[in-house]
């Protein structure tokens, strides 16, 4: 069972205090977008084996959403950051590349 440090309230939260929210940094497509772009926004997912940027909700805690970078194979967490970051911040990328030099953020 996982645990994350919530970057908002700084508590170490148990997985049972959180609810998962899927892939992070997906740009919303509203009216005016193409069918294909809308499909991608709504359904298409990277679903990588490896580092996954994802959303979590501190439901039984401060009630805030946050982002995490986690390996979907080993469950290692490379850091958590605010939900309002529109892409992974540098310190997260650094933390990842330090441990996995071959990793590329696609």
């Amino acid at each position, binding site marked *: 069972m*996982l645990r994350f440090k919530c970057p908002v309230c700084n508590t170490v939260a148990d997985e049972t205090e959180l609810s998962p929210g899927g892939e992070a940094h997906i740009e919303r497509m509203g009216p005016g977008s193409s069918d294909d772009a809308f499909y991608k926004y709504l*359904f298409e997912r*990277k679903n990588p*084996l490896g580092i996954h940027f994802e959303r979590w909700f501190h439901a039984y805690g401060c009630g805030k959403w946050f982002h995490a970078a986690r390996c979907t194979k080993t469950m290692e967490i490379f850091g958590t950051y605010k939900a309002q970051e529109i892409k992974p911040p540098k310190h997260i990328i650094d933390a990842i590349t330090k441990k996995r030099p071959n990793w590329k953020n696609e």
Partner: protein
Amino acid sequence: MKKYSAFALVKEAFNNHLGWGRAWRHAQPKKRYKVIIVGAGGHGLATAYYLGKNFGIRDVAVIEKGWLGGGNTGRNTTIIRSNYLQEESAAIYEKSRSLYETLSQELNYNIMFSPRGVMMLCQTEHELRAMKRTYYANRLFGVQTEMVSPMRMKEMIPIINTDGPRYPILGGLWQPRGGTARHDAVAWGYARAISSWGADIIENCEVTGIVREASKVASIQTTKGSIDCEKLCFVVAGSSSLLAELAGFRLPLESVALQALVSEPIKPVMDCVVMANTVHGYMSQSDKGEMVIGGGADGCNNYSQRGSFQHIEETVRALIETFPIISRLRQLRQWGGIVDMTGDRSPIISKTPVENIFLNCGWGTGGFKAIPGSGWATAELVAHGNPGKLAAPFSLARFVEGRMIDESIAAAVAH
């Protein structure tokens, strides 16, 4: 291939069973195949089988990165039913269920299809209405189901607690010809059949690359070298996104861990499969005597095949509430499988952005029951290049058009 029968068994008994040959050949990849199927799970093997049987295409390789049947086919709770609400689903699952009825005889391999009946509990008024809707829809689509009263249910399943204080049981949807089968045997039986007519099953061979020429695939790279093909079909369940990535496209899928557990074996106490969707748990008793229990899926993307304990807790609670006598049984083992979930929780049998790549995936938590039907439909798609009636509704295009096939209305879990 030696035919399996009681007679042959007795005969072999006098020979210390030294006369039995391999169930399937150990194959090394040839240079080229007409069709390569990636993934030797139930769906991949069944696709190969119906390609050969229905379309005479036998120049086929099934490539498996690990051991045959070791994916979700080897780790599911084996529930087979076809009482789906939506017409498209009922069609393919019922086709599948009816193929299961005669599969042992067809494959000459006893897959122990056991139509012992599946009972889906209704524990809220809302669920009761949804099940009734399913019942009426099933009747018109030729799926035999019936609504069962709590009293009748108690007679059929004496260990059930119909008046649990939290969610008393208000009724049930009963599919008498639903049931279970011996999951591993399904894979082994198909493997033996296709191997006997010359299809190659190549185990311990992982697909690591896809080589394209213009808009088509020319060959695949594997840990056992490169292999050419005319058509390629991905049938890799939880790994579908990874193969798609190799082929240069993405899918509407997320891979998550789904859990199950078994208790120690006890003498038979429950003859059918029971699914309690409101409280999230389902249970059947295997022919060996263990209670086979299905749990929830982890909500986060997961390729570890482990999953966590909290879902097991929830499931076990739900089942002790439903079957109070199981509290003193012991959990023997728990495990997880990586299931591929689509946006509407219905599968994909489809063409892909690459002309000669076909796709079968997205069965999520409930594709064991679909193996024969899905293999049938996928074979048709691969053979013709276009989907037939069974597969057509399950195309990738449905997500673009908004033509969802949503079963969550009828049952919170889809096993």
